[in-house]
Structure formats: C-alpha cells, structure tokens
C-alpha cells in the first residue's frame, strides 16, 4: 500500500504543486512570523543588555507616573551623585541624562523623524565604561558645541566627523560639531536602532529640560561585589531614592519593547492562522475532487482485494507526505521571509552577528501544524466516499447530484456553538484577551456560515449573477452558471476561502470608514471657531516653540491664540483610590516575579492615573466647542481643573470643589474644579488642566505646547495670510506644521488609512491563497469535464467561447464568495460597532464605504477571471478528438 500511495503521489506532481502552494504559503507565513518574533526578542534582549551592561545599580526617583506615554519619573538632583559615591563597594557613579526631547535636522533641513520607530535620545557624555555605547571613531564631546552620535544614525544621514549638525530642542535649535561616533558591542560597531546623541553634561541637561539634574544615576561595583550587594549598600546611603540592580533595570527596559514585539508577532500570527484556515479550505476542496475522480482506481484496488483500511492508510500516507514536504518547503520559505524582513528592519533593531536560523521550537511548531492540519482536512472527505466506491465506481464526477450536507452541517453547527461560547467568554470579560476571544468567535461563525450557508446559496446566487447574460440566451454564460451551481458544495468551499478574506476586509473597511467619518465629524464640530492649528509632529515631545504662543497674537488678522499643553497626574479622590485598589498595578507584576523590588512606586500615593489637555483660561472654551460649559474657566488659574460633566457627576464633583491630585514632579497638589463641559473632543477627553497648572507641575521636558489653536478674522484671504506668517515664524523648526481645519482633520485621520493599508496587506495573503484555490478547483473541474468540453468543441464551441465559459465560472465563484463575505462582513461590522458603542451611542455612526465595496466586488470578479486564465487555457488547448474519446 505504501507503494501505491507513493506512486499516486508521483503520478500527480502538478496537482501536488498547486495544493502544496496553499500549504506552503500558510506555513511560510506562520513560521516566518515565529522565527522573526524569536529573532527580534533575542536581539532586543541582547541589545538592551549591551546598552546598560555597565550598570550594576541604578538610583532613580521613587516618584513614578504611569501614563499612556509610558512611565515617567522626575529627575534626580546632581548632589545625590556625590552621596551615592560614598556607598560601600562602589567603583564609580555618574548622573545620566537619557531623554527623548530632541530631534536631529538632516542635511536637507528637515527633521529626521523617528516615526513609529525608536526615538532620538539625549545622553550626557561620560568618560567611563559605565556609559551606554562604545566609541568607534573620534572622541567624546569636550566643549559645549561638540557632540557625538550613534554611527548608524550618522551613516544613514550622511554625517561625518567634523560636520556641523543641527539639533532641535524644546526651547532652542543649536548647532554642534560632530566629534565622535559610537556603537554597541565591544567594538562599538553594532547599532540599536535608537538614535543616541551625546553632549556635555550642561548641554544635555539643558536639552532634557532639567538643568542641574540627571534622569537617574548609574553605579558600577568594584570587583567581587554583586549587583544585589551594591544596590543594598547604595540604598543605605540614599534612602530617599529608589535603587534597582542593573539586571532589574535592563529587564524593565527590554520588557516594554518586548511587549510591543509580542503584540506585533501575535497580530501577524493571527493573519497567518487566517491564511492557514483559508489554505485548508483549498486542500479540503482539492482532495474532495481528487478522491471523486479516483473512484475507479479505488474500486479496482478494493476489487482485487485491498482492505478498506489499506486504502484509507494509503490516502493518509499520501496526505502526510504532501503535508510534510509542503510544510518543510514552507518552513524554509518562512525562514527566508524572516531573513528578508530582518534585513528590511535591520536599521530599527540590530541583529547583526546573529543567524536568522529557525529556532528548533519554531521549526517543530511549523512542521507539526502542517501535516496535522493537512491530515485533518484530507482524511475527512475520503472516508464516506471510500465506503461507497463499490457502487460509485461507474459514476463520472462533475455532474454528480447535490448531496445532503451531513458532516459539513455538523461541523457548521459545532462551529456556531463554539463561536458563540467564545464571544460570550470574550464579552463577559472572564478572560484576559477579550478581543481575541470575540474575534475567534466571530471567525468560527464566519466559517460555519461560509460552510453551511454557502452550498445552499451557491446555485441561486450563480443564476442571479449570470441572469443579465443568460436571460438574453447567452449559452456561454448559461454554461458557466450551470457549472458553478452543478456542485454547490465545491463552489461554496472554493468561494468560502475568498469569503473569509473578504469578510475581514469588509469589516475593516466599514469600521475604518465609520471611525473616520465619526472622527472627522467630531473634530469638525469640536474645532468651533479654530481656524488654524500649529503643532509639532505627532511623535515629537518637542512641542511648538514657545514664541508661537507669545507672538502669534501680533500677526495681522489673528483674533485669538490658545496654546494647548498636556499633563499627566494621578487623581487621589475617593473614586481614584477605589480604582487603584481594584487594580493592583498590573505593570509591576513582571518586576515582582523578577525578584527583589526596591520600593517600586510605594512612595507615590494610590490613585487613578490620567492624562489631561491643558487649556488657556481666557479663550479655550470659547474657541473650542465642548458643549455646555458650567463655571468660570478663568478662576484659580494656578490650580484649575475642568472635567467632563458626566465624569464630574460620577465622581461626585461640583464646580468649586477641591480635588486632591498627585504629580510625579511636585507631589500632592490640590486642584480646583473650575468648570465642567458636556462634550470632550473624544471619549478619552475627560479632564483639562489650565496651562499654568501644567507648567507649574510638569515633569521636566513635558512643559510643552503640543498645539496652538488660532482664530482669525473672517475677512477673505486672512486665514491664508496668517497661515503664511505662522509658517515663517516656525521656519527654523521644520517639524512644526501649520494646518487649517481640513489639513488638520486629514492628518488626524491619516493613521486610520495607514492601519487599514497594513491590515489589507496582511489579508492579501489570504486572498491570494483563495485565488490559487479557485485556479486549483477549476483546473481539476476542467479535467473532470474533458469529455464535455470535447463535445462542446465538436458541436461548434470556439476556443474563445470555451475560455470565456471557464473564466466566467471563476468570476461567478469569486463574486459569489465576495458578496457572501460582504454581507457577513457588514453584519459583523454592525455587530462590532454596536458592541463598541453600547455604552456611548454617539461614539460611532456606521458608514458604508459604498464605492470601496463596489470596487472590492469588481476586483474580486477580475481576480477570479485572472485566476481562471491557466485552467481556461488548458480547457481550450484540449485536443477535441482526444477529449471526445476520453473515457
């Protein structure tokens, strides 16, 4: 039987290739993701370890403020360094500046943006091995107008030693002479992807916005003293500060990046799984057809005395071989893919000196999921058929009547139940990853709908789709329609692969369009009287230069100028304390597990961490439409807080109340609720602090105007002239943009488009696999219908007509799959939007991107036609005489 299985396999190489491709693509994607994730994690770990390898202990402020931007701590005074140096077992201790408060200006005069990537960082130059980074050329900065930088950053931007380099800080732009290049590793020839810039102590402190202070203090132990011992002895001399060991410090730092990589890997894996699921449809389909075609052979084997078990075994062996080979190829492909991606993002995270070799664990995972999935889908279609081969041996495939959907229906029902359970689990939040559960649940239901509903709809849908042509007696269309509906299960299974992809595309398209239109509407409404918005780049902590707020008012035609700062603080009212008590800081779990923790966050009072916009008391609430404003925003400007009315009510605040709060930089502060407003600029826009309050309590480096709102006179042309003036004013800050309302909204929603594009890119794989499936199914169907095509050609069908009949069949299948996906997708989008807005009905108004949906359908039809080119050609090339004499 082994030989039979092997011979079968070798006799159908071409078919194996097409089937294999589906598996290969899916596995390659999955294993590529796994390998890449592994490589990234390892690289990040080793890089972070390398950066901070000189640190045996770190002294930092115990005050900590969690915010959406990460963890913030106030700086440490310079004199603490001297105290630390008195600790027992210490070799050296230095105050370190490490702050993301600068941007480099490229030789083209534009800001070298960090975008989503790692930030540009200010470091102070320390002439000791404790310093992150090793010199590989030149020397460290000695004068205040000198600097050193990461060699990769210099290379990427064409800087070399001796060049003058412009740097933008929060308050000033300055020029420095590049005197040294650094890197990681013992030779200083590796890069971390972040852009570290080194300055003298004074300059670094200024650029970081904390003169006379350091971000933290790093200490190195003398030989023979362990990190723990050093941390303890340092802790003894500076009891007011928090001390962690170098290992803990490193771990906390790599944790954040690893989390990001983890999310990335998970996301991509989800799409990989989608691709594999789609591929399994193809495999299921292919083998269903092959088995049907092989009934005679199987019947012969049984007739000459093969046991049913042997026949099944032969099939399973064959399946296992195909699965194994395709998986191995997929794994190799995935590793190559990962290597390629690694090369692409090599600038972001260095993985130099490391092979992109598949980790044994990942390799096993990939190969295992290959044949296993393959066997599962392959074994299934075979059993019922083999049982019937004796009486089906004479049956010619292709024209078979519609058969009851026994097993498929059972599977469908199970999937629906499973899906509902998953969604219920997800929605009731009894599990950690709600979204994953809801998503998986919807996915199960999607599969079952595609599997159960598809076959029932395939026939009617094909007829409806081809009606415009068939009603006029077009026999080519009629044949395409009949061929598409003659075996509804096959059509449905082929289309289902596309349905899955299209459903996801449509969900994303509909949600994105809805979010975009809601956001646009909301911003448009909220902008009120604001005509121009001046802001620094979205990922910049530089802010708008202060002179804009100071001098914009004197520009001809400017009516109002309203700078907006932002602050983060901790609410210490009853509600805040209750929330803190209910959520014992989840972020510290990892550190607890890591072992000893030196008073992490203990000194800060418990409360709820919030982010607030700043407001200019004089005009903000008049310029920006936040609904009904109660109270006087101009009261107590030094400690003013404003809150969204509903939030205020929930927390039991009324205007005039004192609200206890805590700032990382200044500790506990009593705020005064000066006003409430009914509508925030978004669901998270609940709190405002007056700009003065922000400035008084800001962590150094965070007292910035992230935007300045400007209202102009209504005369025609005034807005344009003011915009030109403002642009002139910010000329030396290329990162600052001056936008009118339309441009601002465009920029705010651009991220949605980027997100959608990325998701489309990931889904493209599933769609491509689905198209391969259509091509594959049709190739097999064409083979099955050799006789029929021969007859058609004999009685006068031209090659052209035959090609079109096959292509039209593909188009019918593709459009059917697409429309089904569209209906399910829209339904899911409505369901998700409803779930998302259950608490806040105004949050999202559903909007169908009609044009986009039509384009998707047309593209699907075209893609179907393209997918059918090879089988159509094959059909047309058939020798008529041979075809009609085929048994």
């Amino acid at each position, binding site marked *: 039987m082994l030989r039979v299985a092997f011979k079968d396999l070798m006799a159908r190489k071409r078919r194996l290739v097409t089937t294999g491709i589906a598996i290969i693509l899916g596995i390659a994607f999955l294993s590529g993701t796994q390998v890449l994730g592994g490589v990234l994690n390892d690289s990040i770990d080793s890089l972070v370890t390398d950066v901070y390898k000189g640190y045996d202990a770190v002294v930092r402020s115990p005050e900590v403020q969690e915010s959406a931007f990460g963890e913030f701590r106030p700086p440490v005074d310079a004199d603490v360094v001297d105290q630390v140096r008195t600790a027992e077992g210490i070799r050296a201790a230095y105050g370190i500046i490490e702050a993301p408060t600068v941007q480099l200006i490229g030789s083209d005069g534009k800001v070298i943006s960090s975008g989503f990537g790692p930030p540009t960082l200010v470091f102070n130059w320390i002439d000791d091995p404790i310093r992150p980074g090793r010199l590989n050329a030149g020397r460290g900065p000695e004068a205040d107008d000198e600097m050193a930088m990461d060699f990769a950053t210099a290379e990427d931007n064409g800087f070399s030693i001796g060049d003058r380099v412009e740097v933008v800080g929060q308050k000033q732009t300055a020029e420095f002479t590049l005197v040294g290049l650094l890197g990681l590793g013992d030779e200083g020839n590796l890069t971390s992807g972040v852009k570290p810039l080194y300055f003298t102590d004074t300059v670094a402190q200024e650029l970081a916005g904390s003169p006379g202070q350091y971000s933290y203090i790093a200490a190195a132990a003398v030989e023979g003293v362990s990190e723990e011992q050093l941390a303890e002895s340092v802790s003894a001399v500076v009891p007011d500060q928090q001390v962690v060991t170098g290992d803990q410090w490193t771990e906390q730092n790599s944790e954040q990046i690893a989390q990001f990589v983890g999310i990335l890997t998970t996301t991509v894996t989800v799409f990989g799984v989608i691709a594999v699921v789609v591929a399994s449809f193809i495999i299921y389909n292919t083998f269903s057809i092959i088995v049907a075609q092989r009934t005679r052979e199987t019947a012969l084997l049984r007739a000459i005395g093969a046991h049913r078990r042997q026949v099944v075994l032969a099939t399973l062996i064959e399946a296992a071989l195909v699965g194994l080979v395709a998986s191995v190829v997929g794994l190799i492909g995935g590793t190559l893919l990962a290597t390629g991606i690694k090369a692409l993002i090599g600038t972001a995270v260095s993985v130099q000196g490391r092979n992109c070799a598949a980790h044994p664990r990942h390799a096993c995972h990939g190969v295992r999921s290959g044949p296993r999935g393959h066997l599962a889908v392959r074994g299934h279609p075979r059993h019922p058929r083999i049982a019937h081969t004796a009486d089906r041996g004479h049956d010619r495939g*292709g*024209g078979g*009547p519609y058969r009851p959907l026994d097993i498929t229906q059972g599977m469908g029902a199970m999937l629906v139940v499973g899906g509902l359970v998953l969604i219920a689990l997800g929605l009731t939040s009894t599990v950690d990853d709600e979204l994953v559960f809801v998503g998986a649940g919807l996915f199960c239901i999607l599969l079952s709908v595609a599997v159960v509903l598809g076959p029932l709809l395939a026939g009617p849908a094909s007829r409806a789709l081809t009606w415009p042509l068939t009603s006029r*007696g077009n*026999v*080519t269309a*009629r*044949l395409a329609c*009949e*061929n598409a509906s*003659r075996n509804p299960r096959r059509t449905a299974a082929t289309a289902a692969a596309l349905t899955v992809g299209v459903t996801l595309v449509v969900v994303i398209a509909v949600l994105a369009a809805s979010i975009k239109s809601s956001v646009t509407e909301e911003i448009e409404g909220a902008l009120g009287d604001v005509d121009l918005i001046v802001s620094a780049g979205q990922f910049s902590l530089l802010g708008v230069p202060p002179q804009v707020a100071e001098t914009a008012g004197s520009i001809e035609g400017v009516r109002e100028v309203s700078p907006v700062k932002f602050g983060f603080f901790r609410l210490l009212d009853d509600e805040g304390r209750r929330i803190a008590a209910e959520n014992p800081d989840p972020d510290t779990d990892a550190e607890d597990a890591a072992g000893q923790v030196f008073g992490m966050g203990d000194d800060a009072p418990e409360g709820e961490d919030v982010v607030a916009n700043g407001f200019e008391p004089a005009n903000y609430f008049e310029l920006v439409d936040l609904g009904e404003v109660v109270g006087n925003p101009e009261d107590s400007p030094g400690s003013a807080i404003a809150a969204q009315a509903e939030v205020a009510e929930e927390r039991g605040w009324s205007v005039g109340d004192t609200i206890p709060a805590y700032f990382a930089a200044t500790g506990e502060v009593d705020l005064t609720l000066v006003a409430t407003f009914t509508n925030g600029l978004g669901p998270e826009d609940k709190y405002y602090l007056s700009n003065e309050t922000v400035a008084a309590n800001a962590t150094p480096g965070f007292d910035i105007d992230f935007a300045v709102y400007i209202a102009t006179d209504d005369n025609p042309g005034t807005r344009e002239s003011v915009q030109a003036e403002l642009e002139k004013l910010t000329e030396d800050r290329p990162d600052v943009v001056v936008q009118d309302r339309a441009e601002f909204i465009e920029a705010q929603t651009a991220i949605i488009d980027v997100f959608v594009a990325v998701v489309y890119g990931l889904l493209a794989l599933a769609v491509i696999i689905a198209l391969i499936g259509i091509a594959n199914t049709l190739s097999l169907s064409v083979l099955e219908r050799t*006789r*029929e095509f021969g*007859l*058609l*050609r*004999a*009685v*006068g*069908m*031209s*090659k052209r*007509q035959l090609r079109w009949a096959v292509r039209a069949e593909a188009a019918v299948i593709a459009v059917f799959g697409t429309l089904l996906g569209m209906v399910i997708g829209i339904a899911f989008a409505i369901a998700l939007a409803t779930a998302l807005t259950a608490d806040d009905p105004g949050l999202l108004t559903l909007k169908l991107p009609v044009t986009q949906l039509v384009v998707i359908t047309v593209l699907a039809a075209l893609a179907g036609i393209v997918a059918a080119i090879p089988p159509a050609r094959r059909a047309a090339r058939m020798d*008529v*005489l041979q075809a*009609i004499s085929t048994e």
Partner: protein
Amino acid sequence: MSNPTPTPQTTQRGVAAGAIDARKDYGDGDSIVHALDGVTVNFERARFTAIMGPSGSGKSTLMHCLAGLDRLSAGRVFIGETYLDTLDDAELTTLRRDTIGFVFQAFNLIPTLTAGENITLPMDLAGRKPDQAWVDQVVRTVRLTDRLDHRPSELSGGQQQRVAVARALSGRPEIIFADEPTGNLDSRSGSEILEFMRAAVDELDQTIVMVTHDPTAAAWADRVVFLVDGRIVDEMVSPTAEAVLDYLKQLGT
C-alpha cells in the same frame, strides 16, 4: 456488390461531402500505420450512407476527417463546396457548428443543460435564433415534446440518443455524422433511433453518414461502404442485414 472498385459518383441529388485520395498516417518509419490509405468516396445529398468495416479499418478516422475533427496526412475532404484543408481551426469550428450535425455513441449531451437547450446548443453557440417551426417539427419527429425541460440524467439512454439526433438535425446541417449511434442502446431503442434517422432522410431531406459495425443498423441505410485496412473495398446499395452479414463473413471478420 456489383461494383467492387469505388469511384466518386454524382447523381441528380448532388454530393454533400466526400474524400479524394484521403490518407492518414500515424507514426513514422518502420512503425508507420496507414489508417486511411487512399480513400476516395462521395456521399450523396439526402441519402443515408453507412460506413462499415472491422475494428481498425479506419472507418472512425474517415468520419473524423470528414467532420473536421481531425486532419488528413494527404488528400482532401470536402463538405459541400468547401475543402476542409483550406480552413484554420476557428473556421473548422464554425463549420462544425453551422453545417455539420453530430451523433456520438455515448456522452452526447451536456449534463447541465436541459434536453431543449442541448437541442439548440449549436445555434445558441452561434448566437443564431433557431428556426422554431423546424425545431418543433424535429422534436415532434423524435417524440420529445414532453421531455424538453428534463436534464440528461433524467432521461433514458434511448431518450438521450433521441435528443442527440434532434440536436444534429435542429440546425438543418449540410450533413450529419453519426458514430455508432446505437452502440450503447438495447435493440428496441436502437431501432427507434435508426427509424428516426431514416425518417429524417426520407421526410426532412437530411444527409446522414453513419459509422457502424452492426449489420442490422447498416440495413437502415441507402448504401453501405465497406472499409478494410484504410481502403474502400466495396459498397452495397439498398442493403439488407443478411446481405451485409454475408459480405462481412466473406471478408473474414
């Protein structure tokens, strides 16, 4: 029987199709096979001609070449005024569609189309409106009026062949080629089909060329042409089953 050397012959009826010194070889060198070895034959209009011969005699090859499904190695075949070697593949397709009717031994019908659709298929492919009165007459003749909406799988073998005959007739072709049309049928269904073909010639003035190895079937024809080893060895006008059988015995097959 009286004329053992076949020659092209014309009558008042005219010639619907024919072959002139038709040769068809397979393979080359020592292993060359002459499937047709210089066949010259005419098929008269409005006559029912049978081609007989043992297996491998070249009768199917002759028919395939006459019908534009295969090409000769040498010599010529013609349908009406047209020499088929002057046509390219697309023109041959059009010729088959518009001027030739086919009845094969089995698998004559497109399973997804109804009987009615199968009957008008060649005209639908041409995008031509069928001559409804003619089609109705044909359908009545083969007694399929109440079966037009059925799919092939819902019809008996005999009914399926009747649909095939109706399809062959529906476009009023110059000539109909039938390849063992009764080969897969029981004798009753078989004679029914032959009866219809006879009626098509007698009543509807159609021209039919039928390949068969069944003397009973050949007896329905006006004339029988005998083929052996790729050559026409004899012919018989107004054959009877006994006479054909006797002749075949004499040939030693």
